[in-house]
């Protein structure tokens, strides 16, 4: 028990002693970009608390979608600055974690490298399950359902669906507060075809958000035919695709 307390206390002191020459205000940034934002920017502020200038050897991000740079290359003692990390959200959703590795010329190897973490929770206006429905060629053209749930900060009341395709029809049915069921059905499944159905919401009024659900009829598969009537024939059947 005593040794456990000792190791525990010791580790706390070790943490306190490990202060880099470059002192960071924080090394983790939690960002909450609004729905529709294209970028999330984190500012990692630092100060040179040592007695010698610090030189940045490299600042680079873990992912191509994050651009990171330091305001200055050389930081004099006492000087402050910041490293800006710009995360281009793209079409990402959910909890995103990106890191930026900063390398300085600090002679102490453990303090020379700092890892800055950028955490961003990307909200989506809708949760769509699934975003893709498909039928096999020759499969019975039964309807398939897509469930759409609006997130709490997206008070859409109405969804309408538009289909540009001759083959696919879609119906929207409300299924409770902020929830809808979209039933998609192909007229027939004899020909391979693909389309994107546009679902339009009514929020925000100025520029209502829309999203797409993909639907397609897949081309026939090359299977040894149980379907082919004459087993004496070449089981691959007529050439496909």
């Amino acid at each position, binding site marked *: 028990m005593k040794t456990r307390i000792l190791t525990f206390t010791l580790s706390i002191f070790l943490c306190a002693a490990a202060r880099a020459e470059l002192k960071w205000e924080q090394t983790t940034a939690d960002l909450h970009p609004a729905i529709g934002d294209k970028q999330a920017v984190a500012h990692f502020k630092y100060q040179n608390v040592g007695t010698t200038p610090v030189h940045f050897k490299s600042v680079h991000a873990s992912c191509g*979608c994050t651009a990171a740079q330091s305001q200055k290359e050389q930081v004099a003692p006492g000087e402050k600055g910041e490293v800006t990390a710009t995360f*281009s959200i*793209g*079409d990402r959703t959910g909890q995103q974690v990106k890191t930026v590795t900063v390398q300085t010329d600090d002679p102490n190897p453990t303090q020379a490298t700092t890892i800055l973490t950028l955490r961003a929770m990307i909200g989506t206006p809708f949760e769509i*399950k699934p*975003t893709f429905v*498909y039928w096999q060629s020759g499969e019975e053209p039964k309807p398939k359902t897509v469930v759409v749930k609006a997130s709490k900060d997206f008070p859409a009341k109405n969804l309408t669906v538009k289909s540009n395709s001759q083959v696919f029809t879609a119906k929207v049915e409300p299924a409770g507060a902020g929830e809808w069921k979209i039933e998609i059905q192909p007229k027939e499944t004899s020909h391979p075809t*693909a389309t994107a159905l546009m679902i339009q919401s009514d929020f925000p009024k100025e520029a209502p958000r829309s999203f797409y659900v993909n639907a397609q009829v*897949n081309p026939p*598969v090359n299977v040894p035919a149980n379907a082919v009537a004459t087993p004496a024939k070449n089981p691959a059947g007529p050439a496909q695709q």
Partner: protein
Amino acid sequence: MRWRLRRRTRPVQRNNEIFVSGHWLRQAAVLVLFALVPAIGEAIYFRDKVSWQSPIPASELVTVDQARAWGDSSIWVDARPDEEFARGHVTGAVSLNEDRWNELLPQFLPKWSPDKKVVVYCSAQSCNVAREVAKRLRDEAQLKDGEGKNCVFVLQGGWEEWLKKNR
């Protein structure tokens, strides 16, 4: 050693412990061993779903050789950013990255059918991008093979491994 254990054992008449079985070390050992039983049971249950040697679940990873053996029944997906794709990619691979997911997904989907296995790759094993794209294909687009099983795989070794095997 028994005398030492004896000495540290508390008198049996304790008011508040329902069962006493001696030294705490022995009790701890019993617990440690007991816990192994369900743990091993669970490990057996999950034995095919876990990658016991490397950090990605075995059923999700595929080697370059395996993927190439699939030939025409596979469709390759490049999860890297556009610039990297433009610089060079696996012959016939489709670009599908998270920067332009909404735009690229409808271009990828018509090329897929349940008889095709999807091989997603990115740069280097430690890169998460391929796994993220694979995950979205499984969770959002719910791609499955004809038997309802997983058909989206991540290329072990990534782009670099493919390059090595194609020199």
